């Protein structure tokens, strides 16, 4: 297959690109910010995202296009919603406009996020009402809307992936990374929140496999949404204890008790919709996955 990955220098994008390349597919990676030369991708380009440049790229007639570009840092979004608007939303509209005008047949998969659900402690299902609480989340939700709008009105194949907490070597933010960094560098540190927050943690290789199977098997997406999640839930406290055990270090920590404005208590996944498409998967053992991540530092 011929595959295009916008945002293919990022954490999930680069893993996806690598796996496709290793499986013999032709992959083109594009970035609107910077290129990671260490990735050694043959086709890795920095481009200004606009309708014209997208139109040119679309001429390559890709089978699959992933849109993983845009800001992925909630701290940045919190400070400046306009940055997300520019980099995540408006650029995406330009891609869809270009796709519409060129009558593109490529399947486009947009990377949304679990955060669109907002405050909800139940296992999250794709048809739940959404209550986003952060700037990052509202922009993702607006993008989901635009996916549905373009696929319903302009005969485009667009699917939406709500990606749950993903960790693994190479990720430079979020709780697993932060905790490893603290354990490795500090004797005494603070952990944000109460430790009782629950997340569906999934290892990068599992997530990439799920995404690849989904986009291979679900060939006519028309605004459909899928949770990309392992279905395995852990509290922050459990993850912390596992990482400390892996480190073999004596560290002391306290909880800040207070969460950041954009954090919610739980994000528990219901992944039955994707499982129906891709079948039951064998996911990585959490201890092994955390160890691999810890050792990669």
């Amino acid at each position, binding site marked *: 297959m011929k595959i295009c990955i916008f945002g293919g220098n990022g954490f999930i994008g680069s893993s996806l690109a690598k796996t496709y390349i290793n499986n013999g597919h032709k992959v083109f990676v594009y970035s609107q910010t910077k290129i990671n030369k260490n990735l050694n991708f043959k086709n890795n380009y920095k481009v200004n995202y606009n309708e014209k440049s997208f139109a040119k790229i679309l001429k390559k007639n890709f089978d699959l296009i992933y849109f993983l570009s845009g800001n992925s840092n909630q701290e940045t979004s919190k400070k400046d*919603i*306009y940055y997300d*608007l520019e980099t995540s939303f*408006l650029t995406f*509209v330009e891609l869809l*406009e270009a796709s519409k005008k060129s009558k593109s047949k490529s399947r486009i998969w947009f990377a949304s996020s679990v955060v669109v659900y907002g405050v909800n402690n139940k296992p999250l299902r794709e048809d739940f009402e959404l209550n*986003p609480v952060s700037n990052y989340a*509202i922009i993702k*939700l*607006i993008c989901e*809307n635009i996916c*549905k*709008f373009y696929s*319903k*009105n302009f005969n485009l194949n667009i699917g939406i992936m709500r990606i749950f907490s993903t960790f693994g070597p190479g990720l430079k933010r979020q709780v697993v990374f932060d905790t490893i960094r603290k354990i490795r560098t500090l004797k005494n540190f603070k952990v944000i929140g109460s430790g009782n927050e629950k997340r569906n943690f999934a290892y990068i290789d599992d997530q990439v496999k799920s995404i690849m199977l989904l986009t291979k098997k679900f060939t006519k997406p028309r605004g459909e949404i899928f949770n990309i999640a392992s279905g395995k839930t852990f509290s922050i406290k459990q993850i912390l204890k596992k990482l400390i055990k892996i480190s073999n270090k004596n560290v002391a920590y306290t909880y800040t008790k207070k969460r950041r404005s954009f954090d919610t208590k739980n994000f528990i996944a219901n992944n039955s919709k994707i499982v129906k498409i891709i079948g039951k998967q064998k996911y990585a053992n959490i201890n092994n996955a955390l160890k691999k991540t810890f050792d990669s530092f």
Partner: protein
Amino acid sequence: MKKTILFGGSGFFGPILLKKYPNIISVGRTKPPKGVKNTHINISNLNNLKKLDQIKFDKVIFLIGSSNHHIINKNINIGIKYNFDPMIKIMEYLKNKKIKKFICFTTILLYQNNKSSKKVSETNRTNPYENNYIFSKHLLEEVVNFYKDKVPSIVVRLSNIYGYSKLKRPDLVPTLMQKVFKKKKINVWNDKPVRDFIFAEDAADAVVKLLNSKFTGVINLGSGESNSVKKLINTISKYSNKKIGTLNKKVTGPYKFLTNINLLKKITKWKPKYSLEKGLLKTYNIMKNY
């Protein structure tokens, strides 16, 4: 007492509302038309909202946006630019201001998948993906909903509003009025559709009552009455002595589209004062002198 400010005082609805309520302060880059005496504060654009810090206000009527579905349906970016972006900007400004109430406007066309001829109420499912215009209004509603904890808001889903205006607008009543004073032969696309036409002065009263209510959320605003385009053109014909014909062309939207306004009535105790005939007569008499 803190003031109410209104954005969009130079559009269609703004001047009518301001004139009825002279204490409301107009803000924006264009002054309201002559005859509207409300205080006006010049804000060159929505990136310049800090200028409003000088006013003590706690209520906002936001009429900025485009209702020109002809243009937006050709280009989604216009819808984003005029209906979505301004809402983000005003909300980003208001989120720390602790205001009491924010009112903005979308359209009852959001319910346009409604197959039955029953009146649409707020609990009806919406169909935000019908076209660019409706979609841009839907995005605006998503933004308002996102900021609801910091900015207590009402989204008014407006039916077919009409009234006097000097602006050239694509809507049925102002277009017909402007034509009856100039042309001999006038035709409408089709006279069969039935709609909820609401006179702008009635709508202004409802908006101010809503502003002073405790309600937040989505609410319909219309007259609650159903009238055919045929009745409307016959009434204008009667006042103007001009014949208005129909081309009987195919209508893209539904033939019958009506608004349930029970929630609005319950909350505000408001009811429209103008029948279609009375509203059109006032519109005709005012526009005759333009």
